[in-house]
């Protein structure tokens, strides 16, 4: 295939699924950059994919129904060692339920807190964190961790330009390496009145934090506020035209240090 030949939809769709590699992948990316109509179509597919994922993933939080757990333990099973393993199973089930359900179970409490003053968009930031941070294969839409240093820098520039264009506010990729966090990449998300963005960072232990960015409803400045919902903590603030929410399971002081590092980098350079 020559470089200026149009990739068909099957190929574009495979590219979106991470199934295209090497020079072919680079060719498609170049094509999409040069052809906004095709890029827009692929973005819609990606949005549908994310919506499907979000729609059905609530099932993962539900406790496993007793009859299904029974189906696993009952069939053709000898009695010996039974009770002990049943206990293990119960603990395992509990573990899965607690781990996955922990954040969502905070739902009712969250609505109550809503009334107490956390803006609605911070809830979207927390949900986006809960949905994407456990992802192993596709934690981000645009990765900045592929290839050598030069191509990573290129990916970073692309990500920053793309998000800036879509959000209509300057999106800077914060450098949190001094705090031990590397940028994984970012994605575009729907907010109430337009696009928002999520940047994902990961430390050496694989722990993740996300930064949610949105264009503020009006130009304002709001101080740091802290909110904790179940296992997740969050600092959020507004600076100029941009609202920020830093979300992660880390303790409050750790999140504060990261939030301060972000706010500091966001200051316009003094001349």
């Amino acid at each position, binding site marked *: 295939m020559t470089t200026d030949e149009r990739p068909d*939809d099957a190929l574009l769709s*495979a590219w979106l699924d991470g*199934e295209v590699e090497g020079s072919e992948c680079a060719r498609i990316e170049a094509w999409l950059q040069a052809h906004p109509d095709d890029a827009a179509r692929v973005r819609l597919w990606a949005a549908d994919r994310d919506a499907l994922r979000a729609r059905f*993933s609530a099932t993962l939080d539900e406790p496993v129904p007793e009859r299904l757990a029974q189906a*696993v333990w009952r069939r*053709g099973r000898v009695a010996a060692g039974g009770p002990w393993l049943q206990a293990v199973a119960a603990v395992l089930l509990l573990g899965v339920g607690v781990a996955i359900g922990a954040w*969502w179970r905070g739902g009712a409490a969250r609505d109550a807190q809503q009334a107490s003053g956390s803006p609605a968009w911070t809830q979207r930031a927390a949900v986006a964190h809960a949905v994407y941070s456990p992802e192993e294969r596709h934690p981000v839409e645009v990765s900045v961790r592929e290839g050598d240093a030069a191509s990573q820098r290129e990916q970073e520039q692309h990500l920053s330009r793309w998000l800036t264009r879509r959000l209509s506010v300057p999106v800077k990729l914060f450098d949190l390496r001094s705090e031990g966090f590397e940028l994984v990449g970012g994605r575009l998300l729907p907010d109430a009145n337009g696009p928002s963005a999520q940047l994902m960072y990961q430390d050496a232990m694989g722990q993740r934090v996300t930064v949610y960015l949105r264009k503020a409803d009006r130009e304002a400045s709001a101080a740091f506020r802290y909110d904790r919902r179940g296992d997740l903590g969050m600092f959020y603030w507004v600076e100029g035209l941009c609202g920020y929410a830093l979300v992660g399971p880390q303790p409050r002081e750790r999140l504060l240090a990261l939030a301060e590092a972000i706010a500091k980098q966001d200051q316009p350079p003094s001349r």
Partner: protein
Amino acid sequence: MQADDVFRQQLLGVIPRLRRYARSLVFDSPAADDLVQTTLERALAHWHQFDQRRDLLVWVLSIAHNAHLDQRRRDARLSVVDPERASADQDAQGGDPGVDVGLRIDLVQALARLSPEQREPLLLVSVEQLTYAECAEVLRIPVGTVMSRVSRARASLRQFLDGSERSAGAAGPRGLRRVI
């Protein structure tokens, strides 16, 4: 037998993802759990055929796919899901505070209108995040077929969603029913 119990524990671990897939396939949640139960029973009956080096989820999903296929053949009712009913069932299940309600109904209706041949690979790749090779293994079709079906499913889904947005003002959501 020791291996048997290890296997049962592994099987317990994949139930949440198996339920998600069944729910996205069947829409009606009691029917989805029936499918999960059938799948678990078949997996246990054939557990000695499972190669421990393979991914248990992929193996179990392929059993679920076959069980679903059998069910569709046996019971034509399951292959024609009324989209309005499906969305009502989905709403009754609640949850999912992150997605706009209007979008959600359209999405589930649109998904229900895809043929099973398109819906399955789309869900396996998009929601379950399988690779095309894994998806091909689950559905027992060539990788190239996965690629073209996923792409066609995306195009159809988009067409349904765009169409329903356009008709929302004029015909209302009931306009959808006519076509089914």
